[in-house]
């Protein structure tokens, strides 16, 4: 079920196993038959840890989605709420509990499992509603770091960036530190910690403190990771704003990947058999899981989209040839062998069919005029052209009322690439946005300013060109088909965050001291003592393993760039990636927007 987790350099199955164990233990505490009421948001992340079968083994008989009203009938001993600590969810639970028929027999017991953390705020709330006492078990399930793939962990904490940089609430950093402690308990103490940014500093401090306060955490496991690199998202605000151009990145930009699943328009995935249901096309979106368990996907996910077509066509030829083999199978033995390979071939064929369809869907968009124009402007900004005046294309998009998020992405990108906008330019954009999309968005603009995504250029100095040149963020001679540099993931722009990781590995940050000072927050190095005997004696030619933790989110294109570095011959370092949330420019900006719709309940 989770083979893809053990495919990488670090076997992440152990982490998943630990998560399953904790879940089983909680379920067994509530003796007897149970029904789980799910906060719908959680089913995705939980799905990465456990399947229904595991729950069933522990007497979970029914599962419902959390919603107001009376709880459905179910003859079970226990009702367990699996929820995030959110006040609006507490209101729903309160409603559920109040409507429970007290006279029914046997009575049902209530429990709450908070994910990832119990919250005093929520419990206080339940208490004020007078229902807190109804719950027998109130516990937390610290789903801090969820394994997404063999080299990828995420906390899936949507609001982490907003909380850290807008509200200065560092609770998510505390969780990150705790997640790292869990990781060290399973994979050994990480001897070297590097970091850049305010939040990175906090997390490192917390880790050191936690280690000191729980001496028991000193373990005797041989360290798997050599280095931890903590990076603040606000050190590199630029990268997520640009459109990702890798296959996986584009799927996420266009359709949105959630917990490794993507929902696609069904038309291109019509039923396979001709003459059977050809007329009534499915209307429900097609849902696919995307991870490295699928051989073909693992091969193409990180490629620049322009290089995907040729791989697909090569695969098609290979599969066709393989199927042709059946004509040559003469003897019973040969036929038998052919048949034995059929399942594998069919799986490959269906995988190829899916990705050919997805590639077609994406291509329709990447070849559109608007995609092209948008990308042109992005690339101009990133390479430093005309960043200091009002951009025509942005104006046109506003006039045509393109989505507000698209506009904000572009304006923020321009601001970041110019180290802030001139007063006149900023005022102009603001005015156009408010007049076209509504004055209430002044709140959102304010949030973006607070987070540093949109700002006024002060002191009249733009240091972006220096940063760009020193870190070689813009590469003119990018090779999309056979890349030799990480800049292929954005067809020219090398993600700043990943450049920092690359330079840290070789030749070290000392070479870029000046630029590091221009970027926000401190940079630092810490060492964690290892007991003698656990110190690593590296074999000649053995790669180092670095865990890069993105505080505030990471994009698929950045992950692709790090995987590219891992695979580089003589690269010397392999990377495992952790983050608070997998993001793209759209989901990121959205998380910073003022919620303008009242809560549904």
């Amino acid at each position, binding site marked *: 079920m989770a083979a893809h987790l053990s495919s990488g350099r670090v076997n992440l199955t152990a982490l998943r196993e630990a998560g399953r164990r904790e879940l089983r233990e909680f379920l067994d505490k509530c003796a007897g038959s149970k029904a789980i009421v799910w906060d719908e948001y959680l089913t995705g992340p939980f799905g990465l840890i456990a399947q229904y079968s595991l729950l069933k083994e522990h007497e979970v008989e029914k599962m419902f989605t959390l919603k107001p009203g009376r709880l459905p009938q179910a003859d079970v001993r226990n009702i367990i709420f699996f929820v995030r600590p959110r006040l609006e969810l507490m209101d729903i639970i309160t409603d559920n509990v109040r409507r429970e028929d007290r006279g029914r027999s046997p009575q049902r017991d209530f429990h709450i499992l908070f994910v990832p953390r119990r919250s005093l705020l929520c419990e206080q709330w339940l208490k004020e509603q007078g229902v807190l006492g109804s719950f027998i078990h109130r516990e937390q399930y610290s789903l801090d770091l969820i394994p997404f793939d063999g080299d990828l962990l995420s906390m899936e904490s949507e609001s982490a960036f907003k909380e850290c940089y807008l509200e200065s609430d560092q609770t998510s*950093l505390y969780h990150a530190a705790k997640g790292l402690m869990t990781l060290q308990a399973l994979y050994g103490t990480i001897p070297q910690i590097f970091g850049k940014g305010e939040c990175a500093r906090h997390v490192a401090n917390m880790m050191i403190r936690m280690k000191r306060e729980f001496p028991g955490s000193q373990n005797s496991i041989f360290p798997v990771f050599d280095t931890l690199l903590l990076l603040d998202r606000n050190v590199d605000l630029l990268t997520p704003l640009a459109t990702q151009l890798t296959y996986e990145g584009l799927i996420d930009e266009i359709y949105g990947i959630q917990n490794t699943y993507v929902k696609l328009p069904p038309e291109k995935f019509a039923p396979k058999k001709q003459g059977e249901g050809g007329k009534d096309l499915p209307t429900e979106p097609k849902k696919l899981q995307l991870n490295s368990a699928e051989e073909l996907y693992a091969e193409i996910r990180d490629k620049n989209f322009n290089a995907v077509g040729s791989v697909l066509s090569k695969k098609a030829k290979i599969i066709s040839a393989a199927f042709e083999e059946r004509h040559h199978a003469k003897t019973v033995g040969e036929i038998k062998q052919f048949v034995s390979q059929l399942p594998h071939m069919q799986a490959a064929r269906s995988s190829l069919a899916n990705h050919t369809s997805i590639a077609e869907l994406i291509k329709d968009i990447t070849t559109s005029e608007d995609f092209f124009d948008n990308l042109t402007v992005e690339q101009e900004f990133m390479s430093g052209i005309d960043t200091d005046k009002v951009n025509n294309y942005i104006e046109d998009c506003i006039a045509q009322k393109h989505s507000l998020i698209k506009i904000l992405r572009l304006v923020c990108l321009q601001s970041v690439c110019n180290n802030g906008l001139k007063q006149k330019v900023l005022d102009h954009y603001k005015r156009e946005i408010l007049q076209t999309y509504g004055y209430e968005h002044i709140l959102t603009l304010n949030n973006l300013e607070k987070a540093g995504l949109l700002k006024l250029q002060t002191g009249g100095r733009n240091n972006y060109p220096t940063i760009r040149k020193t870190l070689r963020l813009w590469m003119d001679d990018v090779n999309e088909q056979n890349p030799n540099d990480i800049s292929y993931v954005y067809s020219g722009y090398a993600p700043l965050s990943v450049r920092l990781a690359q330079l840290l590995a070789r030749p070290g940050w000392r070479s870029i001291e000046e630029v590091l000072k221009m970027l926000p927050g401190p940079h630092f190095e810490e060492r964690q003592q290892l007991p003698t005997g656990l110190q690593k004696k590296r074999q000649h030619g053995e790669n180092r393993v670095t865990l890069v933790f993105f505080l505030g989110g990471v994009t698929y294109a950045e992950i692709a760039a790090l995987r590219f570095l891992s695979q580089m011959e003589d690269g010397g370092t392999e990377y495992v990636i952790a983050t608070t949330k997998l993001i793209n420019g759209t989901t990121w900006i959205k998380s910073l927007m003022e919620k303008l719709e009242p809560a549904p309940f």
Partner: protein
Amino acid sequence: MSRARADEEEYWHSSKFRAFTFDDEDDELSQLKESKRAVNSLRDIVDDDDDDLEKVSWSGEPVGSISWSIKETASSSSSLEGRDQPQKGSSSYAALPKQVSSYSLSNLFKGRNRLPSLPSLSDDYSNDWSPRDTVRRMQRGKVCSLERFRSLQDKLMLLDEAVAGHDGNVITAVLIFLKRTLRREVLFRELEVRQVALCHLIHFLKETGEQKLLLDLLRFLDRTEEVALSQYREHLNIQDVEKKREFLKGCIGLPFSAEDISHIQDHYTLLERQIIIEANDRHLAMAGQSEIFRKYPRKASILNMPLVTTLFYSCFYHYTEAEGTFSSPTNLKKTFKIPDKQYVLTALAARAKLRAWEDVDALLTTKNWLGYTKKKAPIGFHRVVEILQRNNAPVQVLQEYVRLVEDVETRLNLATKYKCHDVVIDTYRDLKDRIQLMAYKCKVERGSAEEEKINSLLSNM
């Protein structure tokens, strides 16, 4: 692609950018087609039993996944739902177990046991838990009583320890305790020098909607702009438009930044206008006297719409009104200082939608002091053409404006795309391009006036 191909090509070749498209010459497209073909042809070979292979429902949910199972097990159970209304103070409410004196904060940390088993708490009352130990215990989710921290000094030590632990959950717990047990001035004063705790409290107050305390705190801290924005945010929760208008009026006096204040003022003025227009138009529409409202019934009310949408509405329904009325476009333009470009764009879109071509013409015509008229478009004629085309303008109308597109390449491109033959022919004539003209001949209809025109031009060139 509508843009001048040659132009574009030159741009991409001469500049260092790389376009992100599948180039026509590139075999990407054909490659994709190829793999598609292969996949399709294989379908015939394999008599698919692949239902065995992918254990997924059509929607892609693997059978047995959690979200799939919710749908399966929930089945028909929710038929009762929605029938019963919330019963305040009903028996179900009263039946909740009485919670002894337990409304003290400490209970919030209790998770493992049912309330009646409180006696086990006694351990914790040993008075020697230091602030540091208390915080540590709280971090581990243990029960702790904060009540015994009575002196200000103890309370502050507790807060400082919580902050040092970085656990927002514990920090918030301590803050709730301090908020309840300290005088407001003392709390504010102490938080002012404790920024992290301060941020947590502000976040907490925002979450719980304790607007009054929040505003007091921000005022105390002299964060006046935040006070203003935070207060302004409240308008989002007001449904009634009259009340909202009153509220926005009150916001005008708030200490916003210089840049923001004019927007807030505009927001108020706009809503005020919308209320007047809405009342009027609803009446008009109901009376059924006005032709425009009968022919194009309003789909939604104009209340709370953005300014540009309001302008569009007014150009659609109230175009000819004198400047004196609140609903006239010119009045809106003046009141909100809408730039020419924005105005023309919006008016054009509205009039084109009504297919009022003479209005379009008038909008783009200017008279100079000698009385000569001239066509002018602050947005560029290529944009005019785009908008008209989107509204299915007839060729005669379209070509008039295509002709006015200044850039020759763009003009040719648009003219070809929208079959404005006259413009294409005239442009090639002006360019003295025989070859193109000859080539274009096969694109016009046999025996048409256009063909004749080309022929006569060719013979005279």
